[in-house]
């Protein structure tokens, strides 16, 4: 077993008593060779992150601990290693990068200081040498102007730069194993592509083994050599990336892969020319205000939405895609009148609703409804599901009995049991809550549904179900939908037309198929090129 860097055999990790299941990880056996990338894929709660923590000896003991099995690292059993020995190994032999670089970096220490710490704890080096190495490392991860970044604090860097700095830190002592726990999940797609490239590059240089934990099959297709699929703490399938992605054997893997939305846009649908909603030159900026007595600096002025003009036709789904900070959510909130736009007009059929007051707006509310992103924040935890759904129609003047009857009906339409009516939201899972959110929006029989990243907080199999549900109700109720997403795979499967946003502006609009096959604007091209797993999609399509 000398050629393997890491061999985990029959590992069990126990959860505290009274948890959902007894073992977080059950009978896990995997191995990793030098220079290899092993992806652990699974949905939330599959035990993939705990596996990584077990390797680092970072399980939240004594409640969660490894009860059985071995973790052999170059022949040494890490489950038996003493704490001082583990400290030696961490950082120098095995290191880890995390999902959220902002929380993984210490906000009150400079980047240089944090890299310096790694050297101080593990290597005997004079300060001057350490600083030189730190700058060298930052240069290796392609950070611009490393001399300045050494002295910068984490908040002064962008998300991608922070993740680069994390990688520099993790690679400082040329570890044999790099564990990456969803390192690109919090990043935009273009940044993600860069970081993945960087990890690959670093691996080539250092010949380290990479254990990459992710839920994203696109990423897996791009970087993995071998894949381990986990479900409920058990490995259901292992194999080379080709075999697992293209010829999965286990039914769970098959289901997971089937629920990954394809990048090939679906066939265009016949469309109506009737415009139900349009925005003209919509503008919105934030900040610039002052405090009561005029003390202090005025806030930074940000133009979130600049001169956006768009149309939504009856029965179509218009996708608004863009990276974080592109203003897509702000645009949606302006259109649904949750925020007042600074200028421009929003027309619902032919009525300008931009400057309607609250009570004038009320009759229009029921025609345009919204589905929110976070299924945990979008339902009031103190109110029963039945009431959440029925209160909309009641505000609009419907009688309690008919509103409640309608709510029960809607629960069935969105695929929930009627007993959900008298329960509180916290008794439901994320996907079920999103169904409740959809039922609430549908309760008013809207013509237009604005969906703000409705599936981005959900696991891929749940995501597929919710998308299917949205599709179904769109057909059934002849809804027009404005669908905001950062995920181009989802956009390809859901939207008839796309509007691509950057820095508050729409840079390109067009039919989904046209945009995917023949993007005009350079930013759209860049965005499409960055989507992980493209080769895999092409292979599946042929």
């Amino acid at each position: 077993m000398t050629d393997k860097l890491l061999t985990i055999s029959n590992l069990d990790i126990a959860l505290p008593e009274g948890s959902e299941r007894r073992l977080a990880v059950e009978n896990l056996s995997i191995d990793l060779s030098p220079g290899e990338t092993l992806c652990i894929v699974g949905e939330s709660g599959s035990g993939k992150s705990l596996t990584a923590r077990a390797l680092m000896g970072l399980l939240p003991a004594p409640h969660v601990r490894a009860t059985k099995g071995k973790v052999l690292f170059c022949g040494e059993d890490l489950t038996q290693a003493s704490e001082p020995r583990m400290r030696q190994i961490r950082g120098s032999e095995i290191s880890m990068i995390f999902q959220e670089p902002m929380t993984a970096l210490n906000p009150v220490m400079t980047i240089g200081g944090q890299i310096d710490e790694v050297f101080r704890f593990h290597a005997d080096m004079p300060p001057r040498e350490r600083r030189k190495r730190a700058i060298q490392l930052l240069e290796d991860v392609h950070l611009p102007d490393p001399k300045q970044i050494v002295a910068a604090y984490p908040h002064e860097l962008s998300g991608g730069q922070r993740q680069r700095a994390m990688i520099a830190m993790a690679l400082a002592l040329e570890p044999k194993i790099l564990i990456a726990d969803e390192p690109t999940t919090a990043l935009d797609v273009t940044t993600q592509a860069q970081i993945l490239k960087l990890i690959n590059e670093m691996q080539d240089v250092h010949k380290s083994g990479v254990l990459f934990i992710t839920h994203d099959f696109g990423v897996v297709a791009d970087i993995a050599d071998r894949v381990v699929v986990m479900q409920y703490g058990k490995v259901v399938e292992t194999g080379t990336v080709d075999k697992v992605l293209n010829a999965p054997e286990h039914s769970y893997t098959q289901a997971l892969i089937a629920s990954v939305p394809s990048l090939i846009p679906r066939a265009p649908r016949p469309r109506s020319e009737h415009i139900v909603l349009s925005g003209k030159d919509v503008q919105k900026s934030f900040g610039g205000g002052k405090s009561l007595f005029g003390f202090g600096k005025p806030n930074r002025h940000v133009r979130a939405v600049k001169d956006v003009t768009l149309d939504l036709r009856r029965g179509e789904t218009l996708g608004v895609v863009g990276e974080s900070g592109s203003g897509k959510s702000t645009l949606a909130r302006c259109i649904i009148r949750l925020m007042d736009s600074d200028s421009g007009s929003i027309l619902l059929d032919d009525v300008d609703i931009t400057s309607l007051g609250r009570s004038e707006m009320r009759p229009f509310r029921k025609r345009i409804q919204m589905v929110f992103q976070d299924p945990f924040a979008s339902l009031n935890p103190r109110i029963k599901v039945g009431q959440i759904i029925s209160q909309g129609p009641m505000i609009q003047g419907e009688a309690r009995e008919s509103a409640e009857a309608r709510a029960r009906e809607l629960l069935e339409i969105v695929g929930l049991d009627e007993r959900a009516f008298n329960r509180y939201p916290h008794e439901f899972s994320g996907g079920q809550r999103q169904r409740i959110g959809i039922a609430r929006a549908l309760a008013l029989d809207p013509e237009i549904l604005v969906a703000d990243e409705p599936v981005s907080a959900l696991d891929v199999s749940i995501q597929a179900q919710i998308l299917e549900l949205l599709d179904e109700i769109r057909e059934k109720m002849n809804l027009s939908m404005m669908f905001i997403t950062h995920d181009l795979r989802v956009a390809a499967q859901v939207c008839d037309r796309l509007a691509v946003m950057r820095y508050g502006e729409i840079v390109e609009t067009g039919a989904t198929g046209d945009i995917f096959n023949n993007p005009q604007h350079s930013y759209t091209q860049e965005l499409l090129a960055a989507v992980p797993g493209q080769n895999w999609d092409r292979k599946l399509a042929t």
Partner: protein
Amino acid sequence: MADFWKRFSRNHQAVLGLLILCCVIFLAAIANIIYPGDPFLYSKFPLSPPGENGFLLGSDSIGRDVASGIAHGAKTSLLIGLIATLAAVFIGVIFGAFAGYYGGIVDDILMRVTEVFQTIPSFIFAILLVAIMKPSIESVVIAITVVSWPAVARLVRGEFLALKNREFVQACHTLGMGDVRIMLAEILPNCLSPIIVIGSLMVATAILIESGLAFLGLGDPNVMSWGFIISDGRSMLRVAWWICTFPGIAILITVLAINLVGEGLNDALNPRLRERK
């Protein structure tokens, strides 16, 4: 309701607190039956130790029955604590809710007003108010209310600030719900737990402030209270320890019991904690 009680009773300390609190309330209710007549009435046995001359807890310097004083004082303390807290919570919730919900200039104005009240040390402010208004039970209640509400306002403002941008509140806007209804029916229930906890702590603080005021001779001279007995006995602590000790213990136990109940209410009312069975 049965469900709520089940959750509450899982916390044994809270049940103990409730039990003690019930005893104190019961004592206050039957004070006129077990000790009929004026608690200020003096006898010819000054400074008799507990158990002698028919005084269960002894008598003070002019022969007033300490036990009778505690029983009658319980009513005063509880009433003042309850009324002052309710008033303070009412004012505080209104201030905090408007400031947090509307933000901007409304928030600025309401919070500056709150800060003016907060900059004055509360007990000294209470003394000042009672001294200006002349000592009476009403003025004590008003003084305690005035010094207590800013804490509630700040708490409620914070909760409203955090909750008003939550997606479920935005969803209510898209349904066309009015502001007042959003504040009362949607946001307020979500900050009930901290309000109940701070409220229960405030009842305890109010009882302490009232005792403190009475101790300084600023209580209502016609109403028996625990602070009054302590104030009366403090100069004789070395010869007659019982005069200060028993009302002191009464204050301690009552305040403790109220805190325990508050804590238990918090656990029982928070739906997220319910899952931890």
